[in-house]
């Protein structure tokens, strides 16, 4: 009978290996209510992140060029090609310029505007709302706006430039195409930096600033020795978010220049898009994608180290 069995000690009935009770205990400890409630979310998250990541590694070792539904094993061929391909090196070079100049401008202008808004005694909400408007525009639309404004046949900015004697075509010239797409990105995403930094400034403790004022510090002294050191972490967070985005967002460039002229605006994300969806070379695209992921992780780690002062 079941009641009789349950009264007997399990250890006496069936000797267990020495590690099992410990492992069972650990498993039992995992089955807490909070863990069980989190399990569905973790399972979904794992399936949409870990599985694609593992598949990406698999794909980078395969050749899909001949038939997408019947890949063949390619070993490290895609990876060797990645390091030998001059087009990839050129795209990383453009990405570096695009990221450093774009991010630099966005941080300088974004922090500057945040400080102005922080110091504004009235109407801050109206200015913030107006300043934030470009964020709500989809990157594709930002690209189209840039294209219409700078179009040499009917663009407003192009017309103004022609009035002052500049007759070049902005998107058709190597010297101006990259600055133009950087400026479109700056126009759209600087408000995000402002928003993040402004929220940080508004949560600054008032005591250090009051103490500085009592000591007779000027605005610049307060900025240099109190405000900026206290808001440094939030600025780094803003830079971290934007630096990751800047490598992924290709919409604006895709619409305006398609990577040209002479590959001068073909950032690595656009090159990846081209290899994956124009050439359908999924194996090589996976290798490029993983290299981008690796660079993004390194970048993220660097920012985190800066943030914690290590």
């Amino acid at each position: 009978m079941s009641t009789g069995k349950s009264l007997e000690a399990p250890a006496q009935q069936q000797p267990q290996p020495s590690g099992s009770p410990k492992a069972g205990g650990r498993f039992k400890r995992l089955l807490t209510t909070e863990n069980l409630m989190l399990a569905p979310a973790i399972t979904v998250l794992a399936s949409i992140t870990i599985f694609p990541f593992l598949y990406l590694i698999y794909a980078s070792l395969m050749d899909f060029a001949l038939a997408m539904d019947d890949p063949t094993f390619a070993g490290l061929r895609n990876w060797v090609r990645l390091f030998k391909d001059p087009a990839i090196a050129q795209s990383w070079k453009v990405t570096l310029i695009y990221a450093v100049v774009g991010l630099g401008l966005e941080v300088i202008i974004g922090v500057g505007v945040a400080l102005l808004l922080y110091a504004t005694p009235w109407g801050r909400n109206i200015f913030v709302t107006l300043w934030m408007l470009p964020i709500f525009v989809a990157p594709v639309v930002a690209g189209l706006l840039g294209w219409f404004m700078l179009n040499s046949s009917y663009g407003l900015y192009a017309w103004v430039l022609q009035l002052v004697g500049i007759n070049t075509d902005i998107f058709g010239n190597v010297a101006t195409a990259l600055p133009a797409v950087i400026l479109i990105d700056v126009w759209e995403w600087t408000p995000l930096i402002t928003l993040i930094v402004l929220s940080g400034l508004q949560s600054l403790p008032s005591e250090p600033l009051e103490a500085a004022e009592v000591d007779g510090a000027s605005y610049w002294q307060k900025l240099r020795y109190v405000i900026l050191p206290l808001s440094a972490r939030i600025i780094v967070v803003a830079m971290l978010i934007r630096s990751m985005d800047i490598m992924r967002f290709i919409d604006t460039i895709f619409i305006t220049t398609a990577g040209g002229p002479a590959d001068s605006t073909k950032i690595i994300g656009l090159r990846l898009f081209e290899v994956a969806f124009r050439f359908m070379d999924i194996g090589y695209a996976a290798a490029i994608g993983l290299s981008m992921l690796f660079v993004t992780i390194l970048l993220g780690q660097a920012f985190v180290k800066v943030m914690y002062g290590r």
Partner: protein
Amino acid sequence: MKKKFLLLLSCLAILSLALVGCGGGEEPAQENEQQNVATGELVAGPFEEVEGLPVIQAPEGFDWKQFEGVELNLISENTPPSSALAANIGEFEEATGIKVNIQQMDLGTLVQKVGLDFGANSSKYHLVYADPYQILAKYSSKLANLNELNGDPSLPKIPGGLDDFIQSQLEIDGYMGSKDNLYALPYDAPTMVLAYRTDIMEAIKEDFKAEYGYDPTPNPEMTWDQYYEVASYITDHADELDVKYGTGHQAKQYDSLMCDFSNILAANGGDYFKNRDLGGIGAANPGPADMTSPEAIKAIKFYDKLLGVAHPASKSWDWNGLAEAFAAGEVAMAPEWHEFASMFENPEQSKVAGNVAWTVLPKGPAGSANIFGGTGLAINENAPDEEKKAAWLFMVWATSPQAQLMILESPVGGATPSRTSVYELPKVKTAMEDPSSEEAKAMPNLTSMSATLEAWKIENSYGRPKIPMWPEADTIIFTELSKMLADQQDPEATAEAINEQLNTLTGN
């Protein structure tokens, strides 16, 4: 007795197998030859008939509503014929009960979506706008063999038969590698010809003639060197004329740059590969590249020189950008797809309406070369049989002469037909011959048609290589040309770079 009976039975079996075997080899050929011949009595389908055009027919007793309730997805580039088809899809849906969802997008997105659909062996898109170079050449094994559907005695046949299509277009749009299987039917037929401003030519005619000794008005005998002279002259005298530059080009780092350059390459007798028979039915392996030939280098040098006097924004224009600039009166001449004629003649979209004429592209040492950019309509092989047959009914209707005429006359369309019978209609002939006629006003695309028909002649037509790796080859070509136009490399280095990369790509 039993042994003899078994021997006799074996002999009969072998004989029948041999007969079946012999017959089997000839059957497809006979089927191909006889595919346009009705197997039973054919009766007209429930579609409006147009006098002078072949009628859409089906075997007697054919139930046009047998696929009622089936929903088909057609993926197409956002081109005028698809817009016209979408606007008139009611006629087909009413007659068959089949619902057709027409999704339109840019060609790049289309190629991406179709590639993923085929890669997953799915049939999300039953009907595919099969660009010969980016879809047909690469994915022909994923497309249904239309010979089988056209040869099925229980289904409607292609009205007017395959012979009614313009044959060079059928070859490019329909086949890949050989003529064993037919994968697509010609659907649209954009071709690059030369658009020019008649008012500008009138304005410079006398002075130019006095200086250079010939009429600057573009005509079929004009050479590329003369074109360069006329373009330079107009640019130099732009202050006195209602135009900014003599010529404009679609030289953005994009497919358009390869198309624009190909006209000059072929006119000089050059081509991308040594094998010159790749432009028709195509081939899986094109063999060695030929971009370092004297003809190719000459063409590259000339293109670089020509772009030097072109509108500077040419380097940021694709075909749409160039068309907008021409319509805005920025350039006097432009090699452009002929289907922009309706836009140029529309006063709401064009400042130059009424002042535009067309001719074939100028000649080089090898004659005039006008790149063909037409596309076919194909059926996804992965689709279930019922949906495939329903898609065939749509194909029969959409590529019929009646539908092609409807597209030509549609206010939202304007594409030119791929059927010879449509060009035989009196009203179409009148529109082509007299641009000032009411018929021409109703079908403005026909204003470029005389030039286009000339461009479709075998000696004037150019088909880019139809090979599976064309998207990569195309990218190599336009990227290196773009570097040259940006003064990053000279023409010789450009030729070397293209040649080397094409050979690496094709394994030669």
